[in-house]
């Protein structure tokens, strides 16, 4: 028996030795600057990433045409040392610096940019953010038109029918039917048919009036002639798109759209003047990828040619202020100052660590014990009241809106009076004061404040219980009588739960309607929202770029992110015309203006566009007209229709040690004024650590 015991003990000792050995090799020097990244990046391929944790790393190891200024976050020269823009603001010419090189010593050329931008639009790559660069000429055609054409006229895989075939089938069905009366398809059925075919998505931007009218038909019915005209228009549009797509394949990234004039000159042609275009050049989707590493051979088969792990430490070649030195999954990402960066002597940090800590308590512990210097937002929400008192706490309003969707296809929320009643009954102040507690502003509208050039419309959303009860009575539910049982759907998370339960409780108490909060796991929740299997559902929307379009174009009829079933033809047309306000002003704007709320203002803006003396003035006026179209559109959401209930705007907050220098809690603009850091971005390229202050710091 002693032998057996001895054997067991010996086995454990050997095992422990093995443990010891794995550890002796793991010791490493601490980083100069450590921050909590919140989760593990899914990828570091600039064309494919979408989230903030990915963005922080990509911003450090890659660099676009421009980079963000540490103080103002405004674009400043990056790989491009200068640029000019044509008077019509449609052509941008970037001059690349001669000393921009990849970490392997290869120069960064305009060809790298042209290739990377083309790569991102390749349909087979499946880049989620490809649409951000659709402002570039031919980009959208290259990226989407092929699949549009397939959806419109085929040929499709399996037994799925194309839109044109579907329309033809309906007409054939009528032709065979015995009754000779002019058959018609009812608008509701028609819209369902369009939704099934994602017609809005595939016909987006179609200039054809016939298509426009058929898509926005939400009342009455369509007869055989209308259908035939629509089918023909769809086929026409498909032919046009196919031609443009072929043109794009031949030219985009080569000599049109975005292309290299020579090694150091990169030219971008925009479809329409885009006020935020320069911002895009310091946003990671526009960063260059090292062609010679990503796709060393080019046989034309993208899926096979791409080196799938080119962005992992052993293969990566990058061009930013830092290079990726080590990436241990669930442990940390280590970045080291790049010796090949063009401004390397201005980069002060030697080693930067990103920790993927997901547990908020652990993250805070790491920060409090001095093992992390910056903790962006990932702390336990319950502690916010105490943390707010700390001097190292900072908070900024963010361009994120927290709201509820109403299912507009189902009773009781198919009635807009009921939706408005719920919006009016909600006590937002209590939510931001007692539940979220970071000082969030309550949201009377969908678009968060602070977007340059945009002023949200006045809103009918406020707290007015009397009016709410009155509306509910008008809708046929006096004091909540006869109101069907409804639920608030939210994805499982403590914060969402508190808000949902609070709202459910208040609606029960104040309006007498039977509401319960119902949680579901993230994926199940997403499925049910998409399939409209809910009554009210929690949601949040983050701005991809600072522009109202990102919050408003999602509500067009059958839009992929609409998910409320709400449909409003006038709204759709406003959003559609905002794409090209100059064309709108030049066309027949009066048909639209007549239904607007602020008609005088609209007419004045249209006149300003038409009578502009030069290109610059016209572009400027068109920009303001565009904002007005958005304002009119948002007014429909928050004054008349209420397909959604905005609740509050996010505050982005965090903790940063005072010895971290060149870290701006508030932006300092070039004119010396301060502004809010809406995106919570804090580039590392100028950050340095005050070592003396750090030593003096007492942790714990």
């Amino acid at each position: 028996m002693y032998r057996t015991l001895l054997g067991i003990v010996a086995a454990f000792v050997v095992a422990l030795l093995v443990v010891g050995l794995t550890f002796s090799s793991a010791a490493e020097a601490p980083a100069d600057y450590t921050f909590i990244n919140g989760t593990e990046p899914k990828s570091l391929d600039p064309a494919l990433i979408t989230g903030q944790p990915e963005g922080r790393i990509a911003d450090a190891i890659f660099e676009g045409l421009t980079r963000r200024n540490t103080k103002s976050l405004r674009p400043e020269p990056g790989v491009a040392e200068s640029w000019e823009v044509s008077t019509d603001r449609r052509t941008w010419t970037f001059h690349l610096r001669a000393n921009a090189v990849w970490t392997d010593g290869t120069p960064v050329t305009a060809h790298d940019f042209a290739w990377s931008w083309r790569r991102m639009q390749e349909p087979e790559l499946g880049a989620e953010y490809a649409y951000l660069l659709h402002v570039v000429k031919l980009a959208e055609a290259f990226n989407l038109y092929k699949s549009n054409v397939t959806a419109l006229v085929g040929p499709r895989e399996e037994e799925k029918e194309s839109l044109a075939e579907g329309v033809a089938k309906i007409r054939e069905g009528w032709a065979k039917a015995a009754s000779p009366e002019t058959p018609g398809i009812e608008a509701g059925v028609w819209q369902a048919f369009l939704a099934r075919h994602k017609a809005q998505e595939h016909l987006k931007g179609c200039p054809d009036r016939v298509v426009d009218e058929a898509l926005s038909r939400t009342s009455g019915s369509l007869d055989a002639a209308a259908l035939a005209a629509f089918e023909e228009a769809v086929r026409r549009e498909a032919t046009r798109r196919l031609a443009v797509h072929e043109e794009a394949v031949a030219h985009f990234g080569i000599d049109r759209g975005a292309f290299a004039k020579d090694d150091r000159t990169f030219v971008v042609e925009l479809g329409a003047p885009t006020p935020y275009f320069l911002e895009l050049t310091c946003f990671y989707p526009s960063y260059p990828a090292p062609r010679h590493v990503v796709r060393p051979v080019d046989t034309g088969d993208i899926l096979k040619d791409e080196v799938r792990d080119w962005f992992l430490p052993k293969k990566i070649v990058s061009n930013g202020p830092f290079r990726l030195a080590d990436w241990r999954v669930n442990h940390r990402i280590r970045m080291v100052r790049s010796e090949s960066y063009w401004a390397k002597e201005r980069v002060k940090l030697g080693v930067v660590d990103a920790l993927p800590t997901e547990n908020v308590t652990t993250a805070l512990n790491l920060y409090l014990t001095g093992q992390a210097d910056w903790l962006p937002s990932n702390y336990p929400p319950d502690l916010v009241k105490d943390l707010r008192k700390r001097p190292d706490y900072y908070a900024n309003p963010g361009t994120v809106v927290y709201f509820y969707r109403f299912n507009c296809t189902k009773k009781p929320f198919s009635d807009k009076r009921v939706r408005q009643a719920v919006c009016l009954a909600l006590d937002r102040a209590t939510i931001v004061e007692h539940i979220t507690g970071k000082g969030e502003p309550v949201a009377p509208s969908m678009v968060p404040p602070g977007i340059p050039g945009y002023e949200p419309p006045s809103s009918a959303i406020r707290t007015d219980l009397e009016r709410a009860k009155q509306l509910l009575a008008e809708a046929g539910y006096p004091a909540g009588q006869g109101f069907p049982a409804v639920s608030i759907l939210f994805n499982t998370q403590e914060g969402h739960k508190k808000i949902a339960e609070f709202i459910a409780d208040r609606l029960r108490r104040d309006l007498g309607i039977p509401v319960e909060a119902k949680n579901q796991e993230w994926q199940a929740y997403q499925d049910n929202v998409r399939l409209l299997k809910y009554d009210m559902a929690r949601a949040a929307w983050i701005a991809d770029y600072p522009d109202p379009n990102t919050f408003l174009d999602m509500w067009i009829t059958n839009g992929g992110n609409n998910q409320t079933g709400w449909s409003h033809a006038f709204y759709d047309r406003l959003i559609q015309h905002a794409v090209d306000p100059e064309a709108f002003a030049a066309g027949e704007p009066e048909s639209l203006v007549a239904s607007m709320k602020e008609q005088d203002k609209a007419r004045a803006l249209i006149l300003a566009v038409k009578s502009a003396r030069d290109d610059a003035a016209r572009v400027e006026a068109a920009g303001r007209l565009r904002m007005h179209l958005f304002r009119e559109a948002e007014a429909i959401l928050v004054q008349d229709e209420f397909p959604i209930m905005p609740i509050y705007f996010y505050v982005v907050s965090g903790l940063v040690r005072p010895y971290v220098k060149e870290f701006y809690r508030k932006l300092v603009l070039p004119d010396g004024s301060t502004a809010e850091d809406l995106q919570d971005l804090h580039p590392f390229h100028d950050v340095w650590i005050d070592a003396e202050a750090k030593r003096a710091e007492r942790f714990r």
Partner: protein
Amino acid sequence: MVETLVLLAFLGLIVSTLWWPRPVVRAVGAAFVGGLVFLAFRGPLGVLGAALPALGVAGLAAWGLPQRVLKRVCFMVLSLVLLVFVTTWLMYSVPGNPFASEKQANEQVRAALRAKYGVPESATEFFVLYMGRVLGEGTLGPSLKSQGRTVEELIFPAFPVSMSLGILALTIAVGLGLFLGVRAGLKPNSWSDSGSMAVAMVGISIPNFVIGALAILNFSLLLGWFPVAGWGGYQHLILPAITLALPYAAYIARLARGGTIEVMQQDFIRTARAKGLSERAVVLKHALKGAILPVVSFLGPATAGILTGSFVVETLFTIPGMGQWFVKGAINRDYSVVLGCALLYCALITMFNLLVDMAYALLDPRVREEL
């Protein structure tokens, strides 16, 4: 419907291994052993390089391994295939998919992603594709969420981490558990018994995350002895290992107590005492062997569980171990990660159960004869 039939057929096949004639078991078992070796080595050595050791090992297995072990191998390999099938089927029947995102990607993007990662729309197709990939290419496939990495690139570096932690935790658990349990069992209903069992009860009923949080609060934040979290040195290992060990120690203590009480009433103990052995010798030489039998059978699955890591302990202490992948894989619907974890866990469980059976044979003469 098809799925159910396949499932039943598979179950039938697995159960039928019990009645397979000896030569069949020997041949199939050896072939399976060889196949596993081949899969393990084809990555580093290539097809030909792996074929040689595989053939060699298969030959050795056919010649030298006991019938019982070979039967287990047959059972195990077939179970693994069944496991893949059932897991795939379950994953596909859960709402959501690996490419779901709050922002709706268009149809084309989703189709491109499905093609790129080899995730067809139907479960059966995926099963066929996956098995083809595992057997044909010898890879567990690309992770669908951690782009650019294969499942083995994610799991294999994490396994030694979980293993180091697990071995330490297991040592603590077995040492502490046996000590408390046997001591309690020797004097049932005494103060030391109630005391040990009270401690054990507490260990079982307090969840890991509470123990962990308390440990961090006391030993890291207040006393400052250990870092609050992280990985890289011995000091990072202590708190998580203790947190992980305590519930296991509690279970082991209770099992050891029961075992000891039962053994101490056996005839052979009375005989040992009658022949004049000291109480110490009676316990260590005769009783302990029998007393730890229940502990040994618990250790099979427990070791597999502890070595594959714990999600709670790993997230609490930010340890780059295996445990997170079980949960993250499922949450992200990262099908290949889920399957990779399930396969590894299942293989470990069957392996440790086999080891437990062999340990039984060592410890208990009655079992040895059955073999």
